[in-house]
């Protein structure tokens, strides 16, 4: 298959590895090493996309990251990738891509009719219309949304993996062009740990896109030599296809490595992309520069390209993007493109230079080229591919034009000067400054440990790039304690040429007011024209941030890389000032887009949040338990028998506990080991109730408040030894409580001598509940006297259970006689199974969290976070007795504030329906008058509600305004499903109100 625009030789493509790819359904040949863009151009395809707003035909503009027109969708199905830039898509055999946001095709797009109405769509037109009739915006919006957006979201879950890599280094070098290579090498030679990252396929940057020579070698060969030396340095790491995308505080940077995107899907088993999280002592930015387009009428037509892009296609890809070319420039660099075109066999119709004759134009004339000084391309002809250009003579100041001329061509290479890539510098917190001589923004003073070298610093000639690169490398390494800051060897010399200065030319005049000429695009991607900026200014949107937001300049997928500086300069002209006084908009991460999944890394699917399982978890699974998520824990919810519903299973589990014995896996309760001579002082301050004198071997239930006096956590703390306590927290609150305690200990009471250790996972907790629990435990434990007298309620004992050392707590959350057996988690399942063997004769029953909730509700015990919500005090709960009167504790003062001592606060009560079968809806709101007009006064809400098998009726707990004084009164519960249910306020303890059953 032929590639009509492929040069016979040259380029860094692998001609031995031909391949085919598909674009918009057609199959094309290309080579390994091609990008989608170079492959298309080799086959003469320029028209690849349509613009966002007017659906104008768009072609390929550049050859790298500066490309902003050629957005494509690559692949299909779940692996599909939206909005890739054709110049950054490396071809592999079989790659399939298509144009986005076109209907029916890129060649014939019906939405191009938008262009006919462009006059009705000035910037911000949508703020001024679509307002009639009132409330109709949703309908208008529906149509607008259909037209918006570029690519489409993949159809299914991502089949690929992603990961993160955390690294520290002495020197991070971003960009491996001449300056970056030099910096990395010089820093590497000192022995410093260096990471060099570059977004392209291989290091070299602009050196691979030109014909220069360094130290007598062709630039490409010189690059190879540098790369070889870098590879020989053990502390240097070079990463290609890796973009440093974000620069954060304290020299923390994010970089995206695209590991497999250049390979056929599924051909590499590793992660598709990797996010590098880098903490660098020093950063060298060598990110190069991007050529600016020129702003003239219809400058967006396919066939209008950046001069640097044209050169790169010739040198790097051996592709000639056109056969009859015109070059239009306001600076010297595009002359090389004219020579490149000439050398590659193209016909160069003319070099159109806005400046008067100078050294370069003389040189070009010597080579037989026509140079039209003080001329400008004011317009192009052709829609889907240019057919020619319209020329006019330019006045000396570039402000007006006269005369007319035409040239036929199929390629227009333009250069409006260069914009240093200062994005990372700006992201670091620094402010770029405007350099009027170089006509571009350059880095300002650094605010982090970073320095710029080469083109990204506004140094556009190769000698300067190398010099700055080597020096930056040496200085950065020295700052990290490597080398002496001097150069290890002389800087290679490059043949340099004096040139003529660039002439600022922000809008090419067209002989008529900007508002009346065909569109002169500043940001083609977002369809923002020069006239749009002027309109914005006219309407008072005259700061750059307004212009950006009002016109969408730079808001597109390319983040304004191509158009922003032109836009800033056009705005500056309107204000009669220079671009420096306007300033740039804020450059934000990311420099180029980063895949969502790469940012989340491995935190996906089952690893989204760690799953915590108890040591007994698998037993529950084997028994067919259903689970609920409680914090990160999986807790057994209930253990249904075949065919049993949730309610049936829970009734059975509850009755087993009340009548004989049930077992709960309570391992998930937070456990904090507290040791030290001041442990009791500490506990006494963080709990509301006294903790100074808990006897060794005894447990105490405690309440913990936040600063506002609101209940935060509760649990039992046991004193295990003289200076040794074990605190239990709620399952979900464990981590928060731990950090809360550490906060107070470390910042407020550093004088207290104690240590805290989270030991939640160290222990498995088997909670035997029910009247037969003692009988079961007695079969397994012979060295602890389990009698009521020697091991009373709220005591802790150590002994052996099922042959394993254990701590046994006599505490109860069900109201029944309970032994919580704690053993080393490794023995958890062993002890659990032993308990079941021992309990078989008593019909021992496993129960889950749902039954546990019912059992505790029967007893009126609160669950923090369910019956409380951060607005409930111990007094509200009827637990005044838990507040130490003679001591201070966290939250105490808050409890005496006027609102907290009111009698009409929401208070914790029991609720009983008239119909014992009717279970109140949890979350139901409680009202006095169920038919009062809205907004209807609410008294509180139902926090917990169950059917109690033991009591053979429904029970509920809730918070009711002034509830403690309203026992026996009837209130009404209303739910969104339309139900209104009457209930009587009752004491919250429904079962065994004297607490006799747990104390036997």
């Amino acid at each position, binding site marked *: 298959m032929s590639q009509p625009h492929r040069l016979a030789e040259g380029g860094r493509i692998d001609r031995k590895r031909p391949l085919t790819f598909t674009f918009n359904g057609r199959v094309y040949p290309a080579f390994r090493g091609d990008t989608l863009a170079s492959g298309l151009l080799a086959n003469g395809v320029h028209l690849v996309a349509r613009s966002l707003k007017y659906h104008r035909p768009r072609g390929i503009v550049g050859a790298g990251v500066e490309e902003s027109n050629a957005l494509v969708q690559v692949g299909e199905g779940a692996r599909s990738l939206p909005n890739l830039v054709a110049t950054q898509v490396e071809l592999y055999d079989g790659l399939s891509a298509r144009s986005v946001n076109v209907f029916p095709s890129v060649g014939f797009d019906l939405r191009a009719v938008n262009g006919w109405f462009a006059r*009705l769509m000035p910037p911000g037109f949508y703020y001024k*219309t679509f307002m009639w009739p009132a409330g109709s915006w949703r309908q208008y919006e529906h149509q607008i949304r259909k037209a918006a*957006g570029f690519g489409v*979201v*993949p159809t299914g879950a991502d089949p690929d993996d992603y990961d993160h890599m955390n690294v520290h280094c002495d020197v991070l070098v971003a960009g491996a062009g001449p300056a970056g290579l030099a910096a990395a090498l010089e820093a590497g030679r000192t022995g410093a740990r260096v990471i060099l990252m570059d977004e392209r396929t291989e290091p070299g940057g602009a050196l691979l896109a030109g014909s220069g020579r360094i130290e007598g070698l062709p630039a490409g060969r010189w690059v190879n030599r540098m790369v070889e030396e870098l590879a020989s340095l053990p502390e240097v790491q070079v990463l290609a296809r890796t973009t440093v995308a974000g620069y954060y505080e304290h020299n923390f940077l994010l970089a995206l490595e695209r590991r497999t995107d250049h390979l056929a899907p599924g051909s590499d088993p590793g992660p598709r992309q990797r996010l590098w999280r880098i903490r660098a002592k020093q950063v060298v930015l060598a990110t190069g520069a991007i050529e600016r387009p020129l702003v003239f009428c219809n400058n967006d037509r396919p066939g209008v390209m950046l001069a640097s892009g044209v050169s790169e296609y010739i040198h790097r890809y051996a592709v000639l993007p056109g056969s009859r070319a015109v070059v239009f420039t306001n600076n010297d660099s595009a002359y090389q493109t004219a020579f490149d075109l000439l050398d590659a066999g193209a016909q160069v119709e003319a070099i159109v230079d806005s400046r008067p004759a100078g050294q370069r134009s003389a040189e070009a004339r010597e080579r037989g080229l026509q140079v039209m000084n003080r001329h400008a391309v004011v317009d192009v002809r052709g829609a889907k591919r240019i057919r020619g250009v319209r020329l006019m003579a330019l006045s000396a100041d570039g402000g007006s034009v006269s005369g007319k001329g035409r040239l036929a061509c199929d390629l227009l290479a333009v250069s409006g000067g260069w914009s240093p890539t200062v994005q990372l510098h700006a992201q670091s917190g620094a402010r770029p400054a405007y350099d009027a001589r170089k006509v571009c923004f350059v880095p300002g003073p650094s605010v982090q440990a970073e320095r710029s070298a080469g083109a990204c610093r506004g140094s556009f000639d190769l000698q300067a790039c190398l010099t700055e690169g080597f020096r930056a490398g040496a200085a950065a390494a020295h700052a990290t304690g490597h080398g002496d800051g001097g150069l290890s060897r002389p800087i290679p010399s490059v043949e340099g040429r004096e040139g003529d200065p660039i002439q600022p030319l922000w809008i090419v005049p067209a002989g008529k007011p900007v508002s009346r000429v065909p569109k002169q695009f500043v940001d083609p991607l977002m369809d923002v024209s020069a006239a749009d900026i002027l*309109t914005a200014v006219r309407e008072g949107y005259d700061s750059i941030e307004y212009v950006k937001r009002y016109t969408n300049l730079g808001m597109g997928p390319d983040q304004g890389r191509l158009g922003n500086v032109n836009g800033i300069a056009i705005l500056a002209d309107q204000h009669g000032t220079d671009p420096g006084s306007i300033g740039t908009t804020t450059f934000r991460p990311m420099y180029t887009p980063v*895949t969502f999944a790469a940012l989340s890394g491995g935190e996906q699917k089952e690893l989204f949040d760690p799953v915590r399982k108890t040591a007994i978890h698998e037993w529950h699974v084997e028994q067919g338990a259903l689970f609920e998520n409680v914090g990160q824990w999986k807790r057994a919810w209930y253990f249904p028998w075949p065919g049993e519903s949730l309610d049936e299973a829970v009734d059975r589990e509850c009755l087993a506990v009340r009548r004989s014995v049930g077992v709960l896996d309570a391992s998930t309760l937070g456990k904090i080991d507290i040791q030290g001579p001041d442990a009791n002082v500490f506990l006494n301050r963080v709990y509301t109730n006294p903790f100074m004198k808990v006897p060794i071997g005894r447990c105490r239930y405690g309440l913990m408040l936040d600063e506002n006096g609101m209940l935060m956590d509760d649990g039992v703390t046991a004193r295990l030894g003289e200076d040794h306590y074990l605190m239990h927290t709620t399952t979900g609150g464990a981590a928060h409580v731990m950090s809360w305690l550490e906060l107070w200990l470390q910042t407020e009471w550093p004088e207290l001598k104690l240590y805290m250790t989270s030991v939640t996972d160290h222990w498995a907790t088997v909670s035997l509940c029910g009247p037969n629990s003692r009988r079961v435990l007695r079969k397994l434990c012979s060295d602890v006297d389990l009698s009521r007298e020697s091991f009373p309620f709220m005591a802790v004992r150590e002994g052996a259970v099922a042959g394993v050392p254990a701590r046994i707590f006599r505490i109860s959350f069900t109201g029944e006689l309970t032994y919580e057996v704690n053993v080393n988690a490794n023995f958890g399942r062993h002890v659990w199974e032993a308990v079941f063997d021992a309990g078989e004769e008593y019909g021992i029953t496993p129960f889950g969290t749902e039954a546990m909730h019912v059992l505790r509700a029967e007893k009126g015990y609160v669950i923090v976070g369910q019956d409380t919500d951060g607005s409930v005090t111990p007094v509200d709960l009827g637990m005044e007795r838990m507040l130490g009167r003679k001591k201070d504790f966290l939250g105490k003062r808050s409890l005496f504030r006027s609102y907290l001592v009111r009698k009409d606060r929401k208070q914790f009560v029991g609720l009983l329906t008239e119909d014992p079968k009717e279970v109140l809806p949890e979350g139901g709101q409680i009202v006095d008058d169920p038919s009062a007009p809205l907004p209807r006064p609410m008294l509180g809400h139902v926090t917990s509600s169950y059917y109690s098998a033991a009591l053979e009726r429904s029970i509920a707990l809730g918070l009711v305004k002034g509830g403690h004084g309203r026992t026996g009164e009837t209130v009404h519960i209303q739910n969104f499903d339309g139900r209104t249910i009457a209930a009587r306020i009752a004491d919250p303890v429904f079962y065994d109100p004297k607490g006799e059953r747990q104390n036997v």
Partner: protein
Amino acid sequence: MQKYSFLSLARNALTYHENWQRAWRSPDPKPGYDVVIVGGGGHGLATAYYLVKEHRVGSVAVLEKGYVGGGNTGRNTEIVRSNYLWDEAAHIYEFSLKLWEGLTQQINFNLMFSQRGLLSLGHTLQDLRDIQRRINANLLNGIDSEFLTPEQIKEMVPAIDVSPRARYPILGASLQRRGGTARHDALAWGLARAADSVGVDVIHNCEVTGIRREGGAVTGVDTSRGFIKAGKVGCVTAGNSGVLASMAGMRLPLESRPLQAWVSQPLKPILDVVVMSNAVHAYISQTDRGELLCGAGVDSYNGYGQRGSPATLEHAIAAIIEMFPRFSRVRMLRQWAGTVDTCPDACPIIGLTPVKGLYFNCGWGTGGYKSTPGSGWVFAYTIAQNRPHRLNEPFSLERFATGHLIDEHGAAGVAH
């Protein structure tokens, strides 16, 4: 004020859009005003607008240190809703939502207020209890609210994963159909234009550097453009409220923290409603441009830097992918942050201060954008009458002394 309509657009098209007037003037500050509002965000502009419109205050200026809407007004995720749990919050946000519903017409500026519906997801049994409690409270407060099952969620949001496969499967959601989004720049500009049209001086690049007082009463403000005399001063400066308060010798119970947001590249329509999840800490909608607009919880550390931390971003993106596995390969375009001022109870402070003639409206935390018109309305009332309106009475500074907090932290179902 030049009226905006399709007709005016067409008329101006005939003259190549060369005859549009400024949307609002850019006056120099006068020596003094009856009321000076510090802060040219949405709340400040709305306050100024309603001061003149509703209370006929003679001369009002809005002082903005940068450009209008450049703070949190232009940095948020554009979400508007009123489904708050507690009565006090619900009433003020619902009042605000009702103002939103007529604001485009009132100020003749298309705010692109789109009641596309807003889902708050529940992932645990406790989430469901909280959601149902909030739905019930909303309904009894006259605020629309519905419960959706996972199947109903899937029907409304085809891209979402409601399967039990997820680490935290979606078990249900509340839906506020009247919730949605509105274009944030439009709000700032529309209000600036409306305020200007009733005679308010909207003054750019005018940073307040001091608050002058005499005998316990405010007399004016020092600014980067000189002293400006003022009978009353209203401060509406969000993340910088603590800084302003210290100029008046006060300390406020506020913490300023970064709150970040980010967008994907523009994509064809895939998500029509707003989806929020407090349990996994992320929320998402799709803009009219096609970007997926996402937000996270506040960053862990206090600070004034308008930059988000990568750690928070990474976790929130993981949460988005957890809910929407199809968005895994979508690429993030840019990330930014605002500085939010948060009270201990996640509710605002709107009212009088110990300094006579000095008023503060701050502490909106993550809820500021949606409340903009309502906040401006009650603040204008408070300044004009020198007493709070019934709606903002509960949001006084005194509540931190009485303990009458309105704790929307845990209870709101979503933090934003």
